[in-house]
């Protein structure tokens, strides 16, 4: 009887995993095997594939476009993964605060994630136009830079005066007193408006700001300006999902740890450093791993740019692979595309291993 039940459980188990195994075999094992074979062949989808040894890999190494794509992918991955991990943690910490309207803030923070990548790319392309909203905003800041500086100095001065006056009567008054803050804000706003009315701190630009964000070959640091625009776009859409992961992690940390730490006199930063961060290590592992894989394989936002940016300014390894498989108006180079795809897969694996070796592991680091 016992043997029969075990047998039935075994069959049920196999039935449950069979669909996954089939899809794993067809779409991963078989596809990987075919890609590996193609990477050693010359194949254009039509004529008979011919073996050419490691010629595709050699061609990759001598192709300046591949070197560029590799550099862009690595830099993009490091920049985006770092920034989005930090921002996701900060947003999660903010969303985890027990404040009024908590649900509203969480919804607002998460909102960018529910928008489709295609829609977001189109919106960002509009923002990044030479006469687009971003350049107009930069132009406004440039025009009003003096006024903005005056505004900050004015605020600090009023706040400091209030603090010094308050200190004469009450020893416990702090510089950042909320009531003083509101009064300073109000007085600064009035003062700034008066100054603006007289044109003080405002200058007219001889030409509007017209930075070319997309259709340019200019570079800033390790990346072309075009890819910096994609960095902004990518972070904006990805951070909310990662924030959710951190939020779930934060809520699993027992309050008693923080209470004990407070009793011991630990500051907020010390609590973050010695309780929150180590406890979030498994989440950080997931966030960083997803970040590395996602950024190295980033394709859609580059593809959707279309002719809006030169190939050299937007190419990444994933796009290089696609561009070789389906060159616009050209003959498919499936061998090169397969070799590039395998390099991308190996690179992803290496990056994840490096990440583990530098301390972002799967286990809680108490």
């Amino acid at each position, binding site marked *: 009887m016992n043997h029969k039940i075990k047998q039935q459980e075994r069959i049920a188990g196999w039935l449950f995993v069979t669909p996954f195994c089939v899809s794993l075999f067809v779409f991963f094992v078989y596809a990987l095997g075919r890609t590996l074979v193609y990477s050693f062949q010359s194949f254009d989808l039509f004529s008979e594939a011919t073996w050419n040894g490691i010629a595709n890999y050699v061609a990759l190494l001598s192709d300046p476009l591949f070197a560029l794509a590799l550099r862009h992918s690595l830099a993009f991955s490091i920049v985006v993964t770092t920034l989005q991990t930090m921002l996701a943690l900060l947003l999660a910490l903010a969303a985890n605060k027990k404040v009024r309207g908590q649900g509203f803030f969480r919804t607002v923070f998460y909102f960018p994630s529910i928008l489709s990548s295609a829609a977001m790319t189109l919106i960002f392309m509009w923002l990044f136009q030479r*006469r687009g909203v971003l350049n107009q905003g930069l132009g406004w800041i440039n025009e009003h830079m003096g006024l903005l500086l005056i505004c900050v100095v004015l605020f600090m001065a009023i706040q400091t005066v209030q603090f010094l006056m308050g200190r004469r009567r009450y020893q416990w008054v702090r510089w950042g007193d909320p009531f003083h803050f509101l009064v300073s804000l109000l007085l600064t706003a009035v003062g700034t408006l008066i100054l603006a009315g007289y044109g003080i701190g405002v200058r007219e630009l001889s030409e509007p700001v017209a930075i070319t964000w997309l259709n340019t070959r200019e570079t800033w640091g390790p990346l072309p300006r075009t890819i910096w625009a994609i960095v902004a776009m990518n972070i904006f859409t990805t951070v909310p999902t990662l924030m959710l992961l951190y939020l779930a992690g934060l809520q699993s940390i027992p309050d008693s740890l923080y209470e004990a730490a407070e009793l011991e006199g630990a500051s907020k930063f010390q609590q973050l450093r010695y309780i929150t961060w180590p406890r979030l290590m498994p989440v950080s592992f997931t966030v960083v791993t997803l970040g590395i894989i996602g950024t190295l394989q980033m394709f859609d936002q580059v593809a959707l740019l279309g002719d809006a940016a030169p190939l050299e300014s937007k190419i990444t390894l994933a796009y290089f692979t696609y561009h070789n498989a389906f060159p616009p*108006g*050209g003959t498919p180079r499936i061998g090169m595309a397969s070799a590039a795809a395998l390099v991308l897969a190996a690179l992803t694996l290496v990056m994840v291993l490096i990440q583990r070796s530098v301390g972002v592991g799967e286990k809680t680091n108490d």
Partner: protein
Amino acid sequence: MKTRKTLLAAGIAMIAASLPTLANDVVRVSGWGGDNVVVVNTLINEVLVDELAAAGITVRYEPVEGDFAQILTNALSAGTAPDVFYVDSFWAYPVFQSGKIDPVSDDNMAIADELIPSLNEAFMHNGQLMGIAKDFNTLAVQYDLDVFDDAGVEPPNEDDDWNSFKSKLQQVQSNLDDVYGLCVVPDYARFAAFALATGWKPFNDEGHTLLDDRFREAFEFYVNLVDDGAAVLATDLGQGWTGGCFGNGDTAVAIEGAWMIGFLRDQAPNMYYSTTSIPKHPETGDRGNLVFTVSWSVATDSKVKDSAHTLVGLLTSPKAQQWVLESGLALPSLEALGDNAYFQEDNRESITSRVVFEGASNGQVEPFQFAQYGGDWKAIVDEALSAALLKERTIDDAIAFAQQRYDRLTGRQ
């Protein structure tokens, strides 16, 4: 008795076999969507109904929304391609090179002989015609008559060369606030109208690209239009094509094809515009132009190849082309239709169609295709134009860098 019955049956069978067969083949047809769906559906369901029935052909039309070139490439590779389909001149080379396209049948060669010659050139491959051009477009100058009237400047005309054309644009731009002469785009698909007029060719006899003095002359003229006060960058107006600037009333002229008819019908129905030819080169007196065309081609693997060729013949027949012309949805490829009364009508759409139609046979005309290099070839000149227009490179540097890239692409030592 039995022998007589057997002989009778055999006789009937022989007579049936000798009769012309009414095949009633189902032919799968595919192309991209948009306006084309209306054109093809009307052709097969209304215009050619009798001819299709007589030929025993049932058409199964499968329009594709999305990247048609990629879908067709996959389908041809997998052996699941439709029997008859579009092939765009831009990506024709790899498709023809694949060996999956059946050359135009002998019966249809008679139709091909009647087409505008430059259209057939776009679909020649290794000495064989691989498809019959179904329609086409070329470039022309659309101009806003009200703008030129307000500026007190004579509108562009057939006699304009580069200099007089630029002078008119400069005058409009200086006489009117907020209206520019033209908006320029870093795109070979527009720049070619000037480059080809100089006599420059994209490929020399060895198959290499040489950016010689003729190319440089056109490059300099095109890039300097902005600095000379005749044009503005399209991106500075938030646009990606010259038609967009023109339709918004931001520029006096556009350099586009007959697709502007439908665009302006929707975007600026009250615009009082007209169309003239691309300006001539001041020394050669030639105009440059590109032909954008699409063929009907037949798959080699088609199981109903004869019917597929018959269908292509019907879809490109004079009757079908006459209807295409009169519908105003596309320009027919048949040369004789140049004399059609539609082109002689004095309205903006007929004038635009006529000028664009004539563009295919007027001056230095090249098909919009770049051998086996496709978009990789075009990207180089586009990026050189972009770098020069945005002042990221000088004209000399932009051309020198582009030449290096062409040498690498085409294997020139």
